């Protein structure tokens, strides 16, 4: 792609002693669905507010389509936004809410009508134009907020946890919908969420944020399979964490002494024998087999089945090991006929583990 639609260069924003954005550099391309994933308070909303112009960065610049907009007020930036609590205007009808950005731009009445019809059709809101926001369901309000964000053909759309207030069913449905609109419109969406499933479902690329900093920015699959920091490994996906001391290093392979159990791992970059490390292995990267059963993997640890948590298509197996630790393994639910207290073995490959220097906490 030629020029990025959005570029942040070294953007920093402090609130007193809190650094909500710490030297953030980023570029987002045309048609990209970009997710900003991070725990509460990591600075996601602040980032969106800086892009929208609602917050002025202390340092650094914001560029939209190559133009420096750092000093421009929000109303001169031409971005669309869907706010965390929708923020529909309570005294305006749905139609007036949706058409508001066009009116502010001084679009002709004919254009307003035409675009309104387009937006209401796209978001399946026909027939609701004369209602007030408080007369709508959560899902409908959400779609009105989206329609309002999209109607004026913004250069990019910012979405701040737009699905957080919806119930699970509706959220699943809207995840698919939102992705569909994005593909249809072919503009970049910058989608803030603290829900990793949402980020993994919808986005092309994910930035994982923590304490105002980007921990990793990469295509979603890579973030999931190859986390580059301890924080990302712990935050994205569900993992077993094994904390131990590196006992030996042989080139790319190392062995970890995990409370008496020796575990084969990839050698973490720059590590040396004696280091304390955390090894993260995703639940679904481990297998449970009957003792001596067939499975691929350098690591094979005996244990006892404590419980099975049935999850529908999958089940989580809780296995107590001889060193007293417990592992959780995600498997297909109908495959095996294990019972509680059955002896079995947990198997995984060294490749599946991601090791980082042990965290202080």
């Amino acid at each position, binding site marked *: 792609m030629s020029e990025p639609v959005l570029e942040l260069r070294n953007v920093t924003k402090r609130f007193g002693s809190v650094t909500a954005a710490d030297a953030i550099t980023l570029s987002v391309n045309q048609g990209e669905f970009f997710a900003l994933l991070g725990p509460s308070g990591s600075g996601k909303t602040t980032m969106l507010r800086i892009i929208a112009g609602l917050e002025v960065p202390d340092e650094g610049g914001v560029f939209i389509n190559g133009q420096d907009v750092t000093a421009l007020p929000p109303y001169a930036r031409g971005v669309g936004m869907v706010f965390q609590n929708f923020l529909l205007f309570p005294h305006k009808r749905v139609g007036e809410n949706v058409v*508001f950005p066009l009116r502010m731009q001084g679009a002709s009445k004919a254009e307003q009508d035409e675009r309104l019809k387009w937006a209401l059709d796209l978001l399946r809101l026909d027939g609701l134009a004369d209602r007030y926001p408080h007369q709508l369901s959560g899902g409908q309000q959400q779609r009105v907020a989206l329609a309002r964000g999209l109607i004026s053909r913004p250069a990019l759309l910012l979405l701040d946890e737009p699905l957080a207030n919806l119930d699970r069913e509706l959220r699943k449905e809207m995840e698919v919908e939102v992705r569909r609109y994005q593909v249809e419109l072919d503009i970049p969406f910058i989608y803030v969420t603290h829900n990793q499933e949402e980020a993994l479902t919808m986005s092309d690329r994910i930035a994982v944020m923590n304490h105002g900093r980007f921990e990793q920015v990469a295509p979603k699959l890579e973030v999931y399979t190859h986390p580059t920091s301890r924080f990302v490994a712990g935050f994205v996906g569900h993992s077993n964490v094994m904390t131990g001391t590196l006992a030996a290093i042989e080139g790319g392979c190392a062995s970890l002494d995990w409370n008496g159990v020796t575990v084969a791992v990839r050698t973490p970059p720059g590590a040396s024998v004696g280091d304390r490390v955390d090894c993260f292995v995703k639940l679904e990267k481990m297998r449970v087999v009957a003792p001596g059963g067939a499975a691929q993997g350098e690591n094979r640890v005996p244990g006892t089945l404590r419980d099975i948590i049935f999850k529908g298509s999958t089940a989580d197996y809780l296995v107590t090991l001889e060193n007293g630790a417990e592992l959780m393994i995600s498997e297909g639910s109908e495959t095996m006929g294990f019972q509680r207290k059955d002896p079995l073995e947990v198997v995984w490959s060294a490749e599946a583990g991601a090791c980082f220097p042990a965290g202080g906490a």
Partner: protein
Amino acid sequence: MAAGSRVAVAAYKGGSGLLLTLLYLFLYAPIVYVIYTSFNKDLIWPFPPDFTLDAYFKLADSSTYHEALWNSVLLGLGSAILCTVVATMGSMSILKYRSRWRGLIAVIYLCPLFVADLLVGISSLLFNRQVLGLPGNMGSAMIANAVHGTSFAFLIMIAQMARYDWRLDDAAMVFGAKPLRCFWEVTLPIIWPAMLGAFIISFILAFNNLEISFYNLGAIPTLPTIAWGSLRFGLGAELFALAALVNGVVLVTFTIMYLLMRYRIVSFGHRD
């Protein structure tokens, strides 16, 4: 035991009901008495009743009262507009911009409540005359009356606007509204009931005020000043009619305001 506690609750309810009734009697009996008397022939001892509208005809005929009424309305409107504008700007800036000093600013807005009318009247007269070299007139009376009015208007505005969600303004700005447009399109349509409340209260305050108006207006009559002046010539029938009318108008205004709010014809902030 259950029966005993039920009796206690009943006694408690009855007791507080009685107390409330006495309080209302104490507050409203004089007003009711004045209204009742204004419809009677005998103003000194209006029992048994002998109804007549004489007092009202006298009031309608009196040209001094006409002029005074006009002046009072003018004074009330001017002062109320001033109060509402200043109080709206004040409460908006405190709530929206969340300054470190907002507590102090709010207290400064409220301080005039503790200054007696008489002092506000005299000091604004002195200040205008000695420092600014201005004579007392309608304009200075409006401003002087706005001193207390603004405090009350501010109290009303801040109480109602505490529920306003300023992120709505953020939304409006992102969608292209400049600050003034944003106020006009989003803030004003939501906060106008609070502004109306502030306006009505400050209007009534200025309309009814005696001391401040007296010192600033001198010979220009308002309803309270001529009512007070005419007291020196005994209790005229017009005074009873006037008091009854003013109280009646205030009562009706408040009833309407209450009904509007009760049935949510106007509502404050978000409709949830």
